[in-house]
């Protein structure tokens, strides 16, 4: 190989890369929290709500699972200002890339989280719901105290897997010029003429983070095998 690696540019660039990483982490954490919350609501609607509402929730899920995430991000970036301006009547209202990215990620990821949570809830023995009802608890109480705690234990590995996917999906926000970690690395690389080194470095960072996530999943799956 004739290419000479020049890693010198990486250390001075770290502060800039750290800012990008901050954006990535915000997107992941907010995406996960709001995504799982919305996914929970959707899952409960799909399982327990009357048929018309359940169908709406199912439609939402199917829609966002069918759309390429890049398209969803674009839409939110261009659509949200239009919609909000129409609602608030303020023609100068701007939303900004960060907020559109968050909304896009939450809406899309919640569809996937919904399916994971639905599978988790259905994996709890039906007798548990009956037993909870038999001591006088309402359906919601059964969910809160009996079914969901067990379901969450079952679905945590899948949830973490999905979140690892979310981490990688955040790199798509470059299309709306939002600077996440990968975007920052690319910019630095271009500026220094060290694109290869910077991309290799980013790959290493993603690898470390995702490996930690996968290790957590494996650990939890082993622990679960010992449980009830």
């Amino acid at each position: 190989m004739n290419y000479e690696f020049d890693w010198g540019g990486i250390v001075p660039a770290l502060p800039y890369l750290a800012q990008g990483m901050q954006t990535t982490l915000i997107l992941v954490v907010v995406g996960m929290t709001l995504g799982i919350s919305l996914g929970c609501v959707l899952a409960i609607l799909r399982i327990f709500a009357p048929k018309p509402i359940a169908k709406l929730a199912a439609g939402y899920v199917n829609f966002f699972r069918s759309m390429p995430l890049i398209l969803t991000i674009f839409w939110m970036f261009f659509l949200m200002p239009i919609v909000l301006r129409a609602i608030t009547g303020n023609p100068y209202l701007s939303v900004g890339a960060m907020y559109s990215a968050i909304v896009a990620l939450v809406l899309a990821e919640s569809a996937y989280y919904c399916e994971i949570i639905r599978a988790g809830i259905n994996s709890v023995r039906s007798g548990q719901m009956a037993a909870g009802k038999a001591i006088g608890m309402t359906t919601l109480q059964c969910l809160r105290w009996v079914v969901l705690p067990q379901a969450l234990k079952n679905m945590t590995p899948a949830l973490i897997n999905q979140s690892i996917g979310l981490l990688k999906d955040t790199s798509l926000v470059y299309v709306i010029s939002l600077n996440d970690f990968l975007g920052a690395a690319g910019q630095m690389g271009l500026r220094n003429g060290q694109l290869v080194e910077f991309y290799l470095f980013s790959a290493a960072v993603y690898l470390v983070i995702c490996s930690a996530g996968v290790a957590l999943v494996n650990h939890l799956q082993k622990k679960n095998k010992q449980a009830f």
Partner: protein
Amino acid sequence: MIEVKDVTKHYGSFQVLSNCSTVIERGEVVVICGPSGSGKSTLIKTLNGLERITSGDIVVEGVSLTHKKTDFAKLRSRIGMVFQSFELFPHLSVIENLTLGQMRVLKRSKQESIERGVGYLQKVGLAAHRDKYPGQLSGGQQQRVAIARALTMDPVAMLFDEPTSALDPEMVGEVLDVMVKLADDGMTMVCVTHEMGFARKVSDRVIFMDQGRIIEDCTTEGFFGDVQNRSPRAQEFLAQILTH
């Protein structure tokens, strides 16, 4: 106390219960028996509204289960149910299993719930296991905890759906002992069971079901003692089980 009035239930096009009627008085111990598929489990589950009925009515302590405004959760908190598969909450310890319903449904304080829970655990002989998890208990122990869990809600009646059918033979006795004690204390009990020895010893009445219908509904002495006057299907059933 519990009136079953001409109850019919369909699962789609399949008729599970046909025109079942009976009355269960306070303090009575009633055993429901019959061959598999006769609808016994379904019938007992309709008594606390876990299964809905297609037609007819069920009135529990004056509350009609088919009335639109019936608060099923409230009704179920007054009737205890014990399941064949125990259905303890595996993510909670034994004492937590007993206090969950008391705190969330009856709104008792944690202190009081624990006190009452331990009291009932002592009654079923398992006070030493209060902090264990269901997975660490044997089947017989789990079922006794399940009975204690139902009792902590201070029910007016207890429903048992084949409580010993999933147990090793050695553990059946310890559970039946608890049920006998309950009966002696005057609890109203409806039991679906195959344990004819228990039925004979403890119950006041026997209901025999076949293919979704109540074929026999008579006193225990009449069912086991006066066999010639029973219907042919019941005689067949008795002949089979009493030869063991």
